[in-house]
């Protein structure tokens, strides 16, 4: 009887140890998974930021006012390593000393919007080293210096402050 009792208590003790062991392992696994997830998330962010900075880079070239178009014309160049697609999906802000105003995209000349004209190969893509002209048909009077900002669909921003003195 005594041996039987000792055998049962051993089984119970082993079962308890097993439960405790499994619990500890689960807790440890949870902590590890949580940490790995944080590292993975940060790594992913870093990689995407690096890729973004390499993939898309726009540079301001020049800006002027075209009386015949009734528009400010801002020339931008792709100085990145890859083409920029769907430039018309960008966000354009334009204004003066008063502040910036959002302008929607339009495919033709219309007051209160902007359009883009490719100056190289016309393929709806801003290829590396290619330059485009962005026509800004602002509807309100603005005080110089004029301010222009374009943010592509991927989030790359280019901005310029300029005056036109003739």
């Amino acid at each position, binding site marked *: 009887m005594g041996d039987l009792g000792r055998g049962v208590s051993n089984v119970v003790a082993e079962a308890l140890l097993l439960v405790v062991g499994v619990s500890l392992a689960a807790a440890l696994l949870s902590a590890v998974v949580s940490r790995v997830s944080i590292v993975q998330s940060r790594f992913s962010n870093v990689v995407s*930021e690096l890729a973004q900075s390499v993939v898309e880079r726009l540079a301001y*070239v*020049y800006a002027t006012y075209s009386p015949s178009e009734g528009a400010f014309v801002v020339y931008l160049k792709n*100085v990145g390593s890859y083409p920029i697609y769907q430039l018309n999906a960008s966000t354009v802000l334009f204004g003066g000393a008063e502040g910036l105003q959002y302008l929607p995209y339009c495919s033709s000349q219309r007051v209160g919007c902007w359009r883009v004209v490719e100056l190289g190969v016309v393929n709806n893509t801003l290829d590396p080293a290619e330059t485009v002209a962005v026509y800004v048909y602002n509807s309100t009077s603005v005080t110089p210096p004029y301010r222009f900002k374009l943010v592509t669909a991927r989030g790359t921003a280019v901005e310029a402050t300029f005056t036109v003195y003739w």
Partner: protein
Amino acid sequence: MVILLAVLANFVVTYVATAGRLLELSRYYRRPTLLIGGARVVGGGRVVFNVTNQGPESVIVDSSTTLLLDYQAGDGSGRVTELLSYGTSWYVEALVVGGSTYPVAPGAAVEVKPGATARVVATVGGGIAPGSTVILVLVDRWGSRVEYVFAAT
């Protein structure tokens, strides 16, 4: 132990990211610094000017380089902003290094090393009004930009 490794990996990733950004920043500041000088209008429709590389890095002048001219048209039709095409409407005529001048075939790509000067010839579509203001803008492949204003003679 595993948690410690994960934390260490986290530090490594952060360090690499920071180092990468610093490297990118240092590259940005090591870009070529271009300077335009000696610009003049020749024969009404040709502009000749010098581009000197005053930065620590070489710059390649070729079809990926943007040259833009803003000038008063000779026929009185107003100001014209013209984007020129390398090899067609503008080219490097010669490279000047110290006291030596090396001719360059029109339209050929040229490496302008730090301290060297490229003599550029640009031809605009119409004539340039004498006495008017001419603006030159040159942007290289990687975004180094130089602007210069002068009066047409």
